[in-house]
């Protein structure tokens, strides 16, 4: 029978320990986990990007529910262990579950330190520790009011940046004279303060908080010097202390943390402790790299390797605030026996300092440019004698040994044991070895097999360079395919950052997201224009020059440079007057080709660009508006004749199709959207290969989506059945809005749906009424600005330069 292993706590350290244990001793233990938080194991390092809106919770999950099931692990979510009975070898949760163990692992982490000033327990005072804190902060941020963050260390600054990104007016209070004084020297601390202030965050140093006051909730923060700062939210981020109360109560040796030996074993031989709650050789740890090392040691011990031992190591610190590059490592205090090398480039905002002792690096602070961090770390770790390269050392690895190296060559030059991923302690050789041995081809594969770049992600660029070096041109960084060659960001990141940073113009996006070209290219500009139109319907001024010609002149360019024109025929219904008007236009402008389209309307082809405004003027007289046959937007709603005429029709499919089209025309979407409504399951309108389709049945309306009948052929998926036409409209509109907000430019609905997952879309549109209503409302709001007929605008003179030559020269009569 397998031994019973019980784990208290489900953070990153025990999660990692289990991964090692499952690999080293599969089946040896029956594992039960008690997690006081009601959720699975997620990446706490990434809470700051969640707070700033750059990532979603789903993206930072390390082990989803499926992982626990697949590995036969019992996870009690929301169960806090209240007692350990060492004699009976059981633990008991606050919900009354008692579980026996053979081996127990305590991984209770840490608790945030709360300064015991008056008012510290008022509603509105939060800490920054887990997802609940982040969600509470995001909720508070919706008021866009004032926030105070107490603590100018790593966590405090990340919290401040996140709240600032959420639109709050943030003040950081720091008791020391400079920010992050434990990791940065005063010069770098000053640069950091300036960068933080440039983002609109106020910083008060030497700030001694005396009280938090308010009427039943937080109203202001009072400092010892009498300063009063109004605030509705106070975040305390002044430090953490090991959470060892449970162990202490069970009589296990506790000092600052739970005292363990180098094998992570407490004074009870069947009980281990790891993570932030553990104290090894008098030290407690808070950064992920040593915690993961503890996980490795504990797993080896549990698997039977009594020699596995934890060894102290220095860990580099990085700040996870987008746009601030900061790296700090080791000891950088001044001393008689120490020398320093400093590089300052004020214009570029760069500061680098190396602290040397006996010709060896013992400390490094890099600000503004951190690419050489890995190399300095390597030199320090190996105690390399740097006297030979002392003069150029500060310029980094690329200046050593002659000509500057390109970044790729610099990575190639790193030794095999150079650390690439600081969080997970993965060296270069392990990554390149795994790529070769296991045939890895994607970044996700490398993350899965080596853990490199799987935590904070700041080494992703290095890992990708290693993949290129190892795989050559066969490496296709599909994990994040950049939008275009102007950026390294993918569509999803760009969309997220547009929202997170409230970017509302194309130049703002290019500036803030560090575009490498001055004005983009023909790939990214139309995409950015769409994203901004979609996200800021009321604020954004459409950038005409970033639209493809068809959307600029509201007609379809043909191979000979002429255009085709398709007026809207609502639901494919027309009449004699309309047909007569079309016939007259065809005669008057000698239009060479008239064709009925697959979307049930009439296409006039071969119209000269100069004639377009006059053609539209005549069509407009007859009541026609643009059919948007050229648009990444709503095209047609195809219908059958339905219950008005057809002996099989169950509902008024024609009327409903017209209603949808009149409701949704003019909306811009990531790619074209074609719809159809069929009056019965015989499906004469071919609704089951459309982007969105409706099949009417006796009991209501069956909504379909994600079909394709172009490059790919694909039948639709069923979204669900609703009873009334009003409900059907609401569902269809909400679905379209969800697609508008999430789709990548030029990504059709069926591809978007495949990426997001049909069940997730059903959950949001069919099951979550609030979500559906919110999508619906946002679509309706955006239509206020979108439903303008582009043809009549241009008949009235808009963009008239577009349709006339600038000059005519060289002709005999013009030369007169």
């Amino acid at each position: 029978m397998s031994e019973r292993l019980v784990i208290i706590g489900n953070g990153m350290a025990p999660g990692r320990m289990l991964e090692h244990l499952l690999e080293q001793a599969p089946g040896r233990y029956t594992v039960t986990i008690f997690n006081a938080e009601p959720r699975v194991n997620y990446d706490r390092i990434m809470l700051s990007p969640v707070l700033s809106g750059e990532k979603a919770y789903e993206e930072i999950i390390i082990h989803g529910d499926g992982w626990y099931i697949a590995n036969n692990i019992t996870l009690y979510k929301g169960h806090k262990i209240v007692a350990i009975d060492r004699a009976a070898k059981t633990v008991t949760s606050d919900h009354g579950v008692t579980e026996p163990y053979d081996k127990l692992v305590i991984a209770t982490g840490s608790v945030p330190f709360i300064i015991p000033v008056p008012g510290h327990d008022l509603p509105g005072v939060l800490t920054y520790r887990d997802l609940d804190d982040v969600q509470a902060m995001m909720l508070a941020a919706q008021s866009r009011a004032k926030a105070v963050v107490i603590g100018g260390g790593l966590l405090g600054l990340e919290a401040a940046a996140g709240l600032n990104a959420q639109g709050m007016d943030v003040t950081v209070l720091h008791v020391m004279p400079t920010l992050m004084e434990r990791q940065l020297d005063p010069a770098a601390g000053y640069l950091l303060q300036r960068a933080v202030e440039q983002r609109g965050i106020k910083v008060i140093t030497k700030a001694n908080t005396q009280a938090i006051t308010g009427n039943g909730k937080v109203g202001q923060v009072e400092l010892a010097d009498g300063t009063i700062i109004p605030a509705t939210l106070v975040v305390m981020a002044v430090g953490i202390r090991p959470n060892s109360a449970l162990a202490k109560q069970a009589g296990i040796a506790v000092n600052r943390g739970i005292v363990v030996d180098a094998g992570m074993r407490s004074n009870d031989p069947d009980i281990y402790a790891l993570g932030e709650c553990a104290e090894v050789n008098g030290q407690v740890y808070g950064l992920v790299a040593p915690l993961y090392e503890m996980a490795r040691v504990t797993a080896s011990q549990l698997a039977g390797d009594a020699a596995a031992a934890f060894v102290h190591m220095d860990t580099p610190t990085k700040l996870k605030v987008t746009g601030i590059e900061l790296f700090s490592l080791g000891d950088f205090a001044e001393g008689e026996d120490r020398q320093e090398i400093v590089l300052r480039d004020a214009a570029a905002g760069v500061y680098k300092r190396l602290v040397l002792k006996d010709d060896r690096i013992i400390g490094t602070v890099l600000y503004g440019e951190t690419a050489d961090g890995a190399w300095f770390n390597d030199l320090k770790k190996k105690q390399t004698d740097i006297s030979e390269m002392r003069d150029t050392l500060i310029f980094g690895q690329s200046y050593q040994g002659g000509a500057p190296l390109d970044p790729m060559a610099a990575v190639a030059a790193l030794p095999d044991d150079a650390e690439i991923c600081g969080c997970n302690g993965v060296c270069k050789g392990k990554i390149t070895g795994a790529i070769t041995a296991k045939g890895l081809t994607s970044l996700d594969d490398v993350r899965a097999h080596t853990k490199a770049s799987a935590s904070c992600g700041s080494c992703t660029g290095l890992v990708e360079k290693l993949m290129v070096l190892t795989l050559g041109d066969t490496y296709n960084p599909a994990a994040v395919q950049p939008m275009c060659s102007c950026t390294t960001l993918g569509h999803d990141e760009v969309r997220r950052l547009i929202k997170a940073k409230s970017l509302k113009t194309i130049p703002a996006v290019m500036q803030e997201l560090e575009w490498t070209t001055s004005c983009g290219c023909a790939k990214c500009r139309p995409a950015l224009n769409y994203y901004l139109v979609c996200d800021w319907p009321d604020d954004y001024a459409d950038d005409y020059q970033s639209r493809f010609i068809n959307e600029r002149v509201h007609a379809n360019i043909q191979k000979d440079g002429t255009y085709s024109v398709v007026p809207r025929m609502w639901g494919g219904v027309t009449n004699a007057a309309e047909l007569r008007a079309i016939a007259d236009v065809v005669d008057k402008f000698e239009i060479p080709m008239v064709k009925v389209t697959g979307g049930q309307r009439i296409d006039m082809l071969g119209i000269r660009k100069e004639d377009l405004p006059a053609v539209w003027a005549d069509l407009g007289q007859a009541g026609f508006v643009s059919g948007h046959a050229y648009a990444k937007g709503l095209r047609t709603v195809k219908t059958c004749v339905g219950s008005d005429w057809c002996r099989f029709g169950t509902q008024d499919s024609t009327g409903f199709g017209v209603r949808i089209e009149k409701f949704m025309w003019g909306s811009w979407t990531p790619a074209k959207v074609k719809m159809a409504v069929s009056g019965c399951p015989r499906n004469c309108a071919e609704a089951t290969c459309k982007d969105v389709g409706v099949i009417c049945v006796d009991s209501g309306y069956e909504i379909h989506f994600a079909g394709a009948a172009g490059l790919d052929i694909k039948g639709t998926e069923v979204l669900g059945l609703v009873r009334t036409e009003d409900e059907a409209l609401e569902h269809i509109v909400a679905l379209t809005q969800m697609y508008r907000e999430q789709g990548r430019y030029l990504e059709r609905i069926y591809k978007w749906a495949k990426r997001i997952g049909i069940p997730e879309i059903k959950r949001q549109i069919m099951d979550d009424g609030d979500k559906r209503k919110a999508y619906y409302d946002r679509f309706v709001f955006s239509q206020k600005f979108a439903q303008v007929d582009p043809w009549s605008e241009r008949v009235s003179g808009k963009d008239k330069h577009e349709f006339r030559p600038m000059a005519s020269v060289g002709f005999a009569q013009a030369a007169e």
Partner: protein
Amino acid sequence: MNWVAIGSISDIPRRGARCVATPEGKIAVFRTLDDQVYAIDDHCPHRGGPLSQGIVHGAAVTCPLHNWVISLETGKALGADEGAVRTIPVRVEGERLFIALEALASRAA
């Protein structure tokens, strides 16, 4: 060299183009984001697409028909494509724009 006035720089939108009609076909006159002005034949070397209708980015235009990217400075196709279009000298005097039309001048005369 025969310099012909074709209008004012403000007639052309930034990151846009206008056409000048000539007996030999259209000439596309481009204005970049930083107010550089270029003139090339309005005829993509690939399949003859009207380059004046393309998206202008930097000193290049992407043809609206098949996305060839043409350098406005050299008239040459950029990237993997090969081909070139005729460039026409442009002079900017204050606001006024002139293009040089040698061949046309002789024909008109």
